[in-house]
């Protein structure tokens, strides 16, 4: 019934503003990551199955895309029929009624989508974006180096142990640094990583009354540990490093250990782009006082904005691109090592995938253990592991990220940096009227 009303509503909108977009032509905005590029290449299969639909792509780099689609959806510009959005936007936009609810038929098997992913992309129990690929964070380390140093890496190490291993394999004279971690300021860069660390040290971004908690002893402990570890055993230039910079270092054989997105596993284990492809092993993200929130959860997902004039075709595309059949198709065309991961239980159950991806188990375990609605030791009013899903978080994350970097560069003490971050966060929350 709901679906029918939705359809009637959508067609009413379509009629009232028809004439601008070409009927049967879908414009899809997406981020320029490898899995999406693959989707672009495979679109022909979708068009063949739906001869009356043509697909056009707008591919942009992450930050630019986010700004582009936000402008469009908030002004109801209707330039895009399908948008690629992250786990940060999905619940916020869903709650505002900017996205179509996703209700697909039985064939789609929505229960096959990993519960953590479904939870993170829903608002008020309704699914607003379908995960295209997802990731958590984990440790990637050089087995050859730990073996040589006589160290072992348990599957669930503590931060203390990670520091010991970093010390043991740190060998800058031979161009190998013990541990590489993100240091470039940004809410999706260093702030994302440090938040998982802080979660595990028992910290949280906000208390139940939305008061920022950055001056808490837990935060101080976590950030001090981070600065100390990276200063002693990290590579030079850490303050400018984020995912790609570290990937380059790791693939060149310069990092002994790296804690970052699970998707990195498919790059570091690829001999075409990594010099150390055969020496990498994986473990779960380290913990301190709690396991909660120690590893992040992220997904790039497809959503249909309310402003589109062709919601029916758009929904058809989303269903196709996030289906089991699509994963099957990628597996057949490009090999099972390059299928989009982190979305469906059936992918991990597939023996062909298990055989092709040596990181499958570690990744699955990491994703399953992440819970966006319960990611800190003490209660919080927000969802999200490495972020808080509120519109203010981007600005707060940037401001705090800059302070973390200042502490890492040695410009400020950790205490002063956290104090400054707290002031910035408090200003934003006050302005937005939380208290």
């Amino acid at each position, binding site marked *: 019934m709901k679906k029918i009303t939705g359809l009637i509503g959508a067609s009413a909108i379509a009629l009232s503003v028809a004439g601008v977009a070409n009927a049967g032509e879908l414009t899809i905005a997406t981020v*320029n*990551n490898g899995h999406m590029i693959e989707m672009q290449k495979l679109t022909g299969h979708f068009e063949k199955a739906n001869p009356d639909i043509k697909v056009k792509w707008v591919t942009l780099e992450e930050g*630019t895309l986010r700004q582009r689609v936000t402008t469009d959806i908030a002004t109801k510009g209707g330039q895009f029929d399908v948008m690629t959005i992250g786990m940060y936007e999905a619940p916020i936009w869903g709650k505002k009624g900017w996205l179509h609810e996703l209700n697909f038929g039985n064939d789609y098997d929505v229960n096959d989508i990993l519960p953590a992913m479904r939870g993170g992309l829903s608002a008020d129990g309704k699914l607003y974006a379908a995960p295209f690929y997802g990731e958590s964070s984990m440790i990637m380390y050089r087995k050859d180096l730990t073996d040589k140093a006589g160290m072992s890496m348990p599957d669930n190490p503590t931060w203390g142990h990670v520091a010991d291993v970093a010390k043991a394999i740190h060998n800058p004279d031979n161009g190998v640094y013990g541990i590489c971690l993100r240091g470039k300021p940004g809410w999706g860069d260093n702030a994302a990583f440090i938040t998982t660390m802080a979660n595990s040290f028992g910290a949280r971004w906000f208390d139940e009354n939305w008061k920022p908690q950055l001056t808490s002893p837990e935060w101080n402990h976590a950030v001090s540990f981070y600065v100390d570890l990276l200063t002693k055993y990290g590579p030079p230039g850490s303050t400018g490093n984020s995912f*790609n910079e570290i990937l380059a270092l790791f693939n060149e054989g310069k990092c002994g250990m790296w804690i970052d997105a699970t998707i990195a596993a498919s790059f570091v284990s690829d001999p075409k*782009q990594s010099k150390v492809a055969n020496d990498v092993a994986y473990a779960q993200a380290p913990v301190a006082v709690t396991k909660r929130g120690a590893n992040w959860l992220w997904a790039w997902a497809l959503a249909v904005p309310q402003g589109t004039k062709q919601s029916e075709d758009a929904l058809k595309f989303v269903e196709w691109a996030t289906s089991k059949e699509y994963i099957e198709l990628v597996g057949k065309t490009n090999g099972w090592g390059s299928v989009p991961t982190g979305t469906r239980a059936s992918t991990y159950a597939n023996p062909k995938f298990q055989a092709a991806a040596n990181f499958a188990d570690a990744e699955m375990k990491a994703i399953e253990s992440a819970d966006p609605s319960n990611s800190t030791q003490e209660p919080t009013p927000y969802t999200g592991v490495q972020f808080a899903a509120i519109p203010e978080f981007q600005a707060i994350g940037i401001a705090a990220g800059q302070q973390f970097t200042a502490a890492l560069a040695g410009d400020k003490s950790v205490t002063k940096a956290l104090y400054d971050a707290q002031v910035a966060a408090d200003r934003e929350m006050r302005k937005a009227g939380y208290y």
Partner: protein
Amino acid sequence: MGYRSAKLIKHNLTVLSAWIFALLFFFPIFWMVLTSFKTELQAISVPPLFIFEPTLENFTLVQERSDYMSYALNSIITSFGATILALIIAIPSAYSMAFFPGRFTKDILLWMLSTKMLPAVGVLMPIYIMADAAGLLDSRTVLVIIFAFMNLPIIMWLLFSYFKEIPKEILEAGRMDGCNTWDELKHIVLPLSWGGITSAGLLSIVLAWNEAFWSINLTAADAGTLTALVASYSSPEGLFWAKLSAVSTLACAPIIVFGWFTQKQLVQGLTFGAVK
């Protein structure tokens, strides 16, 4: 003899230092082009690779993934269109301001330049809504208009200053010979400042070519320019230096070639000595 050889040495030193500067300034671009022929792994190799087996895989990949020609065409149309539009508006104005200045001419020029200070981010939303209402989202027209206005103050300033350099005596001599305003503009001002007009035009084209904010935010699948193409290769998850180098090489090659063709024009404004 001593004087001549000293002069020769001086000349050679000048030429040598000119080449040193040219090489220093060009090296990063050379490096970018070189990187575009490497694999991703070679691109991050330590120490940097100067000699390697070149590959075309980055270029094939770009071609496979995106229709370079349509982006390039959009860039050409929008940047040239905007520049021509801006020049048509600016040449008469600048001429009039340079030779018949009023009390406020200087203030008006300053004010024109200060219009460039409005931060685009603040007006993105209203402009987006207006463009949408006019049905101009994702069209080349909207970019031509915006680029023309964006560059108009700069073109005005440059033309004004080049026109100002023309000695008044030449114009007066022309008037004595019975030139009217149109003849004066056509036969004296324009030829004398041809180099200046070319350089103003070239600057305007380059600035429009490299404009990223509006060209990305107001376009979608149809009117995207080369900056939008570059944005689709910049900073994905994974190694990208080689691919980005390839796409950047493709994106700035047309404009460098164009610069090569115009460089003779740039300095071909008749020298005053010849006129006198």
